[in-house]
């Protein structure tokens, strides 16, 4: 039996709050981050953007040395990287790692996400067309997804193993899964798992609309699992969790916020966006089995719940197959912050830990008439609920299925 892995730090920058306390308050209140933004066709559509973010303000609570290094590393960075740095710094401080409790070369850093620089590249394209000589040299570094890893590592002085991982919209969950595996393999003694902020370029957004997965432009919110579900609404967030072996965390006096008790990931053998209930069911069952948890012992599911009809229906079918007559609470954090794409899994893992520790399940504000009977879906208000065991799922285009089990630490 491998040593348990625990979560010891959380950090988040989201459309409903910067920092875990603000995010937790938004979860409790059922606050949403949706607003009209200019769209690619000259009109508007709804999204949950990160607005008014200021790196220096986000780092205000950090210890002076950490704050100085983070500002130095990221002050010229694109917003997605700055948001990742802010989330990582918060998690780092939350875990009590700022004083060198774990040697720098034993700390790992995994960033979940890929194609993170489409918006950045698109902004620079006119400069290139006008005069290639005027493209900033920094572009060569900043146009690479790995700039997230590099800049966060500089901000925190992390020198252990680090890299990106990609699994479309399941990238955030995959970062958690791979961080847990680095720890289990003995490669690191603590690992940051980051879900990177995704800001797709206008052509990527247009193609998502053409694919039919975006909510119609007039739709002011997304409604996971409601009969009105009409497509996803993009959101912008970065999130970070610190993982450590339970024994080492205990010995250094860190607070285990939750145990990452079981993880699973698998493919559907497809290049398409079509979800597979069988593939989703398989990873949910594997993650529960690896955690040694029976489906009937699960109190809460933080579902992928994108509010696309195909996605929600596939997931409800998979949940019905896994849980049968057991009826865990189900909600989708995407009903509050939209679909944060590469960051979604990390955002939702943080939401799960917050609810598990505080004993409630957050609202699905848009949920009035469930898309399918037989599920215990949270309605328009939060519900007090003791949670011992929770399951959080993320699925991605191209048949990426992931599930993680979190248990009270």
């Amino acid at each position: 039996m491998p040593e348990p892995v625990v979560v010891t730090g959380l950090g988040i920058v989201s459309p409903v709050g910067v920092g875990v306390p603000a995010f937790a308050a938004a979860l409790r209140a059922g606050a949403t981050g949706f607003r009209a933004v200019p769209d690619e066709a000259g009109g508007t559509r709804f999204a949950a953007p990160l607005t008014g973010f200021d790196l220096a303000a986000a780092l205000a609570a950090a210890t002076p040395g950490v704050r100085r290094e983070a500002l130095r590393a990221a002050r010229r960075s694109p917003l997605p990287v700055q948001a990742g740095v802010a989330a990582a710094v918060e998690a780092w401080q939350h875990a009590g790692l700022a004083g060198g409790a774990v040697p720098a070369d034993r700390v790992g850093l995994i960033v979940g996400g890929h194609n993170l620089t489409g918006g950045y590249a698109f902004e620079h394209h006119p400069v290139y067309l006008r005069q290639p000589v005027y493209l900033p040299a920094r572009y060569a570094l900043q146009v690479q997804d790995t700039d997230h890893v590099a800049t966060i590592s500089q901000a925190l002085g992390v020198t252990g193993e680090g890299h990106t991982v990609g699994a479309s919209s399941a990238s955030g969950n995959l970062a958690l899964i791979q961080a847990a595996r680095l720890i289990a393999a003995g490669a690191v003694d603590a690992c940051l798992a980051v879900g990177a902020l995704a800001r797709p370029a206008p052509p990527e957004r247009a193609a998502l609309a053409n694919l039919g997965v975006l909510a119609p432009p007039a739709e002011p919110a997304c409604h996971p699992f409601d009969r009105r579900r009409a497509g996803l609404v993009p959101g912008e967030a970065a999130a970070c969790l610190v993982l450590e072996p339970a024994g080492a965390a205990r010995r250094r006096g860190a607070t285990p916020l939750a145990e990452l008790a079981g993880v699973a990931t698998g493919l559907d053998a497809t290049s398409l966006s079509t979800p597979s209930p069988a593939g989703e069911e398989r990873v949910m069952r594997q993650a529960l089995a690896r955690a040694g948890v029976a489906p009937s012992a699960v109190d809460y599911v933080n579902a992928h719940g994108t509010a696309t009809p195909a996605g929600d229906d596939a997931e409800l079918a998979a949940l019905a197959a896994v849980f049968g007559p057991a009826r865990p609470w189900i909600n989708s954090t995407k009903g509050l912050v939209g679909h944060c794409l590469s960051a979604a899994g990390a955002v939702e893992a943080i939401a799960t830990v917050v609810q598990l520790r505080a004993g409630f399940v957050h609202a699905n504000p848009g949920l009035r008439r469930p898309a399918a009977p037989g599920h215990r879906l949270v309605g328009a208000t939060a519900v007090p609920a003791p949670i011992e065991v929770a399951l959080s799922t993320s699925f991605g285009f191209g048949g990426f299925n992931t599930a993680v089990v979190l248990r009270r630490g």
Partner: protein
Amino acid sequence: MDDTEVFAAVRAGIAEVLPEVRPDEVDIDGTLTDLGANSIDRAEIVTLAMQRLGVTVPVAEFRDVHDLRSLVDLLAKHA
């Protein structure tokens, strides 16, 4: 274009890339490295100055630049 205008463009690039540097610290006989610029900062300051001045200078010609004065001279030659 006179050297004053070119130096002003370089100063503007320094102010953008190195916001902690006070204007009175920028000495025409000093270097960007003295001001705390790393290699990427230096390249970016030069690019910003070129863009502001509307000039282009082949990268190879920057080999002989060793301080702000020689940078200003090179940019002025192409202006």
